[in-house]
């Protein structure tokens, strides 16, 4: 009896394509996610051919490692705190009040989300560094002999992290606020609750899922942060940097063990937040409710204050990008002790477009990001159609495994792939990925495919399952159902997700720096190299080109998003 009930291919339309799909998905997950991570784990537990925990004992005895671990965790905690302090009030301001130019500011406020971390780091150095525009301005204003500050250490890291990661809180809190049924607040008010009580007893409890999600994203991004500690971390040791340094020194064993440590901490954060979320129950806001209207700020002074806040804030947000733009036009060597570069030229851009080596890095990045994004799109359609099958065993396992590369810091993904496909072994035969062009597209694919899978799944969830059932009832075979019903309905969302993955892969630095080869040298590596050689203008020009590409892609993605919501 029981065995007859549990045959999944009987619950919907039995089709051999399901088996093929399951095989493909299974193999990719096995070789892309399970095997590399298991390889790193077993390697970290091995010493001279025997199983041992000695690597870990030695690791944790080292002060430097312990310090790096604690720094990473502290940095994450403080980053979450600061980002919440900036992002949550901002979301309330933009969601609850109407004031001049609110829409433009609200869009600009999420800008740092799409800025590649490395480009952001570079722009930050130009703006706030000890020889940056702000420092020079203060120096000139007060006629100081030396730079008024140096951009190093904790302050610099926290400032930069807050700037780049507060949008997680801003965007998710805003979305959460929009979902809350306004009549709940009205009911509370009618029961005699004062506004503050409504905020703490009604609004914030409902916002908890959004806040938790934002805290999770922020802490994981902070944990994975690499370029900021590398360029202006000063004496602050963090785990990502330690892993990189250990590999550069050739201490593979140490790098592996530290990688496992970082992975465990990251996954720990994921489990912690999801557990916490699971212990509370939230009412779905699916019921009909009154949409909340934004309250216009009527008093002249308050209007002025809000608009001023908006302008100041937007300027602050735009400043790094503006700085990058200015520097990208600076003549080489024309910016030493002045506040702004003294001579301007288009040479920096001309150099990128005329020198073959300089141009090829752009094409490398474009090519690899394209490959990774398209692979991710195809892959997501496979995973989504498999996982959306009701009654299929192992759906949860597949969903979980797909998310693993997203939860792991880029450093961990790169190290695990590099180690697992570095030399011939029983799992991979003589297949070696390290040192070939393909290692970066593969890593980009693994790192960013979860974004596309989630986008496709979100689109599928919005789709009424009765649509495909109706198509089946009308006589449409599985292939026709996929092409004529499912694909047209999910493609805007799927494409928007693909573009996002493409954009992030375009400026990827963390993983690239560990495994790139001359043949696939991406633009991020070129930027870092130009910075090292003090070709600030060229580095900035690369950054601006990336930003331009990203801006175009994101505009298209936003259009598509609107189409898919309509």
């Amino acid at each position, binding site marked *: 009896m029981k065995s007859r009930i549990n045959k999944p291919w009987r619950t*919907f339309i039995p089709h051999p394509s399901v088996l093929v799909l399951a095989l493909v998905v299974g193999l990719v997950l096995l070789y892309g996610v399970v095997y590399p991570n298991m390889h790193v784990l077993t390697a970290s537990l091995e010493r001279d051919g025997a199983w041992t925990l000695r690597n870990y004992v030695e690791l944790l005895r080292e002060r430097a490692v312990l310090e790096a671990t604690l720094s990473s965790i502290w940095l994450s905690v403080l980053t979450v705190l600061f980002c919440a302090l900036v992002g949550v009030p901002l979301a309330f301001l933009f969601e609850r009040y109407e004031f001049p130019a609110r829409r433009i500011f609200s869009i600009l406020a999420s800008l740092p989300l799409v800025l590649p971390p490395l480009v952001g780091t570079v722009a930050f150095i130009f703006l706030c560094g000890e020889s940056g525009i702000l420092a020079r301005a203060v120096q000139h204003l007060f006629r100081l002999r030396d730079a008024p500050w140096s951009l190093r250490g904790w302050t610099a890291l926290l400032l930069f992290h807050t700037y780049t990661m507060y949008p997680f809180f801003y965007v998710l809190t805003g979305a959460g606020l929009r979902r809350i049924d306004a009549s709940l607040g009205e009911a509370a008010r009618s029961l005699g609750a004062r506004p503050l009580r409504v905020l703490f007893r009604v609004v914030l409890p409902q916002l908890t899922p959004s806040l938790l999600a934002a805290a999770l994203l922020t802490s994981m991004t902070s944990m994975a942060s690499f370029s900021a500690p590398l360029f202006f971390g000063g004496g602050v040791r963090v785990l990502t940097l330690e892993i990189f340094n250990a590999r550069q020194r050739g201490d593979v064993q140490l790098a592996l063990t530290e990688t496992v440590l970082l992975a465990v901490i990251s996954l720990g954060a994921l489990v912690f937040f999801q557990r916490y979320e699971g212990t509370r129950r939230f009412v779905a806001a699916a019921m009909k409710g009154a949409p909340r209207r934004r309250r216009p700020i009527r008093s002249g002074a308050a209007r002025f204050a809000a608009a001023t806040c908006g302008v100041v804030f937007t300027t602050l947000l735009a400043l790094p990008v503006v700085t990058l733009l200015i520097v990208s036009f600076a003549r080489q060597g024309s910016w030493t002790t002045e506040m702004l570069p003294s001579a301007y030229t288009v040479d920096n851009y001309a150099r990128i477009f005329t020198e073959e080596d300089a141009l090829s890095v752009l094409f490398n990045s474009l090519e690899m990001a394209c490959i990774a994004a398209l692979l991710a799109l195809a892959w997501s359609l496979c995973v989504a159609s498999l996982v959306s099958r009701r009654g299929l065993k192992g759906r949860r396992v597949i969903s979980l495994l797909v998310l693993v590369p997203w939860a792991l810091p880029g450093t961990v993904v790169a190290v695990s792939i590099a180690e697992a496909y570095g030399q011939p072994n029983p799992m991979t035969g003589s297949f070696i990925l390290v040192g070939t062009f393909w290692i970066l597209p593969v890593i980009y694919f693994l790192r960013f495919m979860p974004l596309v899978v989630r986008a496709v799944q979100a689109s599928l969830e919005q789709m009424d399952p009765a649509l495909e059932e109706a198509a089946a*009832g009308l006589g449409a075979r599985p292939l*026709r159902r996929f092409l004529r019903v499912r694909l047209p309905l999910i493609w805007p969302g799927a494409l928007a997700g693909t573009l996002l993955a493409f954009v992030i892969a375009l400026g990827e630095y963390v993983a690239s720096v560990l495994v790139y080869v001359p043949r696939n040298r991406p633009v991020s590596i070129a930027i870092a190299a130009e910075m090292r050689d003090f070709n600030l203008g060229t580095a900035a020009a690369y950054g601006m080109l990336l930003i331009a590409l990203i801006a175009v892609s994101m505009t298209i993605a936003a259009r598509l998003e609107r189409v898919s919501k309509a």
Partner: protein
Amino acid sequence: MSFLSLQNISKRYGATRAVADVSLEVEAGEFFGLLGPSGCGKTTTLRMVAGLETPDDGKIELGGRGITRLPADRRGFGMVFQSYALFPHLNVFENVAFGLRARHIEAVEVTRRVTEALSMVSLSGYERRSVDALSGGQQQRVAIARAISIEPQLLLFDEPLSNLDVALREETRTELRELVKRLKLTALYVTHDQEEAFALCDRISVMSEGSILQTGTPRELYEQPEEVRVARFLGRNNLIEAVRLSATHAEASMFRTTTGGHHLLRVATKVGVNLPLNKPCTLAIRPEHLQLYRKTEPEESAPSGTQSENTLPASISFVSFSGATTTIRLEAAGLSLEALVLQPDGFEPGASVTVRLPPERITILK
């Protein structure tokens, strides 16, 4: 040999039994209803007929041919969903044409049949509209046109009217029955609305907790419910706990109510169940069948002779006016009864009345 036959169908979801051992026979050209509260398994049964779920046990046959495991896209049944499930990326024409295109029918024929289907639901001229631009009632009719365009052997409805407002629902109901009858289609219709099922269906199966309680025509179900659950579900009913007193003959037997101790005579209209003596059972009588007499009325109009059987003195506890009818709640020595009257004059809360339970209107429930 019936047209559609379900034989001992069962379906489980994990530990819950959605459908347990359901059997039913639908004749060709019949408008058949599955009626029951939400969660009773009626939609699951319909989905198994549609091929969207596979039964764990049992057989489904169509015209004598087993179709239990045939995929939905090879059954050729038209289905109308509760959410209508119109394809939002296709216009009205393409929605209706979807099933025809899946059959690779040539373009001219597709146009002809879509036009015909749309005219049948009076939506001619709406071909190029986007489905989002239609009202709920129009979307509903597109869904019906789409289902009949493929000339289905069987038409399946999953609560198709529940998203419409009351007035439109009653109007669409009449049109739907006329359309199905005119096209001589066989239909299986799932609903939780008793009035809707009665108005639409030739025969109905009442379902509860995954099984069929009773199958019959609307009048049979309403007037001779066999079970407490059926009596409760189909409109309002006075359920009276009682014990049978005499076994003189099954057609006219005497009962004593558990509360109030009233003696009630029941006259069976058809040969029914013969209950053992002194065993508790449940009697049912519809509120509209209770006869109420005002105490102030002259003697001669009060029941007398054979008419005086089953009369109880009662007092009115509650009066609820709802337009055409008025509901009056009564207390007769602890026994609560509900009566439906057309003329509420003189019935005030607290007033004393005489209530009569006509013996031929009382049914015995299992």
